[in-house]
């Protein structure tokens, strides 16, 4: 066959496909029998698939819904948007696709709803690609162990509970304990340290004023350019709240699959479970514990399983997840908290008591854990933080004895004093993440006892003086340390110790 004939053949094939695509045929037809509370019941459409999009023809145009209950006599579909337009008797047809959202770089810097429509008053978003909202997680062979650090910039986390790229680390705690603050600091740190990690913040039923404040803060910190915000408010239909984390994950997966790195923040999954419970009860699914449906575990496990570190063959991209769960009165053994704790690779537990004592971030050293992040910790931080967690936990245990003061033996006294200094050191104001060298040098100085004569109340001042001095006089060494590839030992250790001791002299009292 000549080349020309092949070209013609290809053209004919394309024409034929185009022809087929525009030819209308018989399409399945259903009818709305009942509607209310965001759920439409549809008769007919026996070919409908689970999670398939349905188009309901209303007087004011087409309203979309997706099929969640496929039953013998009817379909229960959750309406995306206003249900007031939908009426019994409306015709319904299958769209032939399952739900997808726009994905791509075009979304960076934008605030969108879970359908990818802009909420920030900006121009309409046109992307080259679309991503499936519900997508199967990558398999075993497509994954690699978590080994690169995802620095949060929060010393207490990076030193004691390091997070790696591709890890799922739960942030859990009561209301007003600084859970969102940890997540926001992590996002800010990605811009400050120029890690190139894309942030996707998913607000599930959050007050829109809070989201607006967050956007302003991210803009002023210069983080918004590498951030996508998927926002749903408390007044949005439960269907949108339910979709938000899946839609956000689809947007994050685009960067993961391209070999990039993305960070997902789900704020918060408690509200997500509540929205799903609402939908399930309205769909007449049988309630289980705390009235949640039987598949509430699968709801979160299939979401979080999509966060992964990909193998080199697949481009070595990663999707890290920081889901947030709100507890009631510190009860981490409630239904949803235990579920998500068991799904994730560790949790950061925020305590109300610590928060009220002024220890912020209020991270509980005893109840927090990172199960896979150890390999991902930078050598520099790892070399100085070896016994930090144990020391701090022991100190919190001993702290109650501190009131006996002089009755204690010397070793216990020392442990308490060191613990007090470490506790002070790990306090960190919001929106000021620390880089690797800052963390390593600070912890090293306290561990080596350079600040032993400085009163605990002045630790933050002496730390700040040390960091300023080190950066001013030894910038090159600090830049090397900041790469994190080398342990804090030898010359660099001596240098930090020397400067720390010199700086400490001004604060002793």
């Amino acid at each position: 066959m000549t080349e020309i004939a092949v070209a013609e053949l290809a053209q004919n094939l394309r024409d034929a496909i185009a022809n087929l695509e525009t030819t209308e045929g018989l399409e399945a037809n259903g009818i709305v029998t009942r509607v209310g509370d965001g759920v439409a019941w549809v008769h007919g459409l026996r070919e409908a698939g689970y999670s398939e999009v349905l188009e309901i023809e209303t007087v004011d145009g087409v309203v979309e819904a997706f099929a969640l209950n496929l039953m013998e006599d009817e379909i229960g579909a959750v309406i995306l948007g206003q249900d007031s337009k939908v009426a019994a008797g409306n015709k319904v047809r299958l769209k032939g696709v399952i739900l997808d959202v726009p994905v791509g770089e075009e979304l960076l810097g934008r605030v969108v709803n879970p359908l990818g429509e802009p909420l920030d008053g900006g121009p309409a978003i046109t992307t080259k690609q679309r991503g499936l909202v519900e997508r199967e997680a990558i398999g075993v062979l497509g994954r690699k162990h978590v080994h690169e650090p995802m620095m949060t910039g929060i010393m207490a986390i990076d030193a004691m509970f390091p997070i790696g790229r591709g890890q799922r680390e739960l942030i859990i705690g009561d209301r007003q304990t600084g859970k969102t603050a940890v997540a926001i600091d992590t996002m800010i740190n990605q811009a400050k340290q120029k890690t190139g990690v894309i942030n996707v913040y998913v607000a599930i039923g959050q007050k829109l004023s809070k989201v607006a404040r967050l956007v302003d803060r991210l803009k002023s910190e210069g983080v918004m350019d590498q951030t996508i915000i998927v926002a749903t408010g408390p007044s949005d239909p439960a269907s949108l709240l339910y979709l938000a984390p899946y839609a956000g994950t689809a947007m994050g997966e685009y960067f993961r699959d391209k070999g990039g790195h993305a960070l997902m923040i789900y704020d918060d999954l408690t509200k997500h479970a509540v929205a799903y419970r609402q939908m399930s009860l309205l769909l007449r699914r049988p309630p289980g514990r705390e009235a949640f449906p039987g598949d509430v575990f699968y709801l979160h496990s299939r979401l979080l399983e999509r966060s992964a570190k990909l193998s080199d063959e697949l481009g070595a991209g990663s999707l890290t997840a920081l889901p947030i769960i709100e507890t009631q009165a510190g009860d981490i053994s409630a239904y949803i908290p235990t579920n998500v704790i068991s799904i994730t690779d560790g949790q950061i537990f925020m305590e109300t008591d610590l928060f009220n004592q002024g220890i912020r971030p209020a991270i509980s050293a005893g109840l927090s854990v990172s199960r896979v992040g150890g390999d991902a910790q930078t050598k520099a931080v790892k070399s100085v933080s070896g016994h930090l967690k144990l020391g701090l936990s022991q100190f919190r245990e001993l702290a109650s004895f501190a009131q006996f003061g002089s009755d204690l033996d010397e070793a216990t006294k020392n442990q308490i004093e060191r613990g007090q200094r470490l506790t002070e050191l790990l306090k960190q104001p919001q929106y000021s993440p620390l880089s690797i060298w800052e963390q390593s040098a600070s912890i090293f100085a306290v561990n080596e006892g350079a600040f032993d004569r400085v009163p605990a109340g002045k630790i933050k001042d002496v730390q700040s003086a040390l960091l300023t001095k080190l950066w001013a006089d030894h910038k090159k060494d600090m830049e090397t340390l900041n790469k994190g590839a080398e342990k804090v030992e030898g010359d660099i250790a001596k240098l930090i110790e020397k400067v720390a001791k010199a700086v400490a002299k001004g604060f002793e009292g």
Partner: protein
Amino acid sequence: MSSHLSRTKIAHYVAEQLRAGKRDVVAELAAFLVEERRTGEADLIMRSTLEQLEAEGIVLADVTSATAIDEAIKTELQKLTGAKQLTLREHVDESVLGGIRLETPSQRIDATFAHRLSQLRERKI
């Protein structure tokens, strides 16, 4: 406790009886629905029955066009639906402008000019 018989199962039974020529199944169904206090579902059960019959090749379809349709079109429609026995309920409606709209119990094709125009309008928006 009596089990709730699904509409699909009822429709299956009714369709079977109708095919066997037993017209009194309608009275039987009415009695059943009254007894079970499910008269509100009568329309949906009729719809399901028609869908069941459609699956077996006995199709009752509504056809809407701007002018009356001729035999050639009817033959075409029979081919399109793939029905063994097609009963058409014809409606003439000038507002469709031209073309044809066919609605069977579970399927639909709208090839009217009015529909095409509204589609074009939507895409333009």
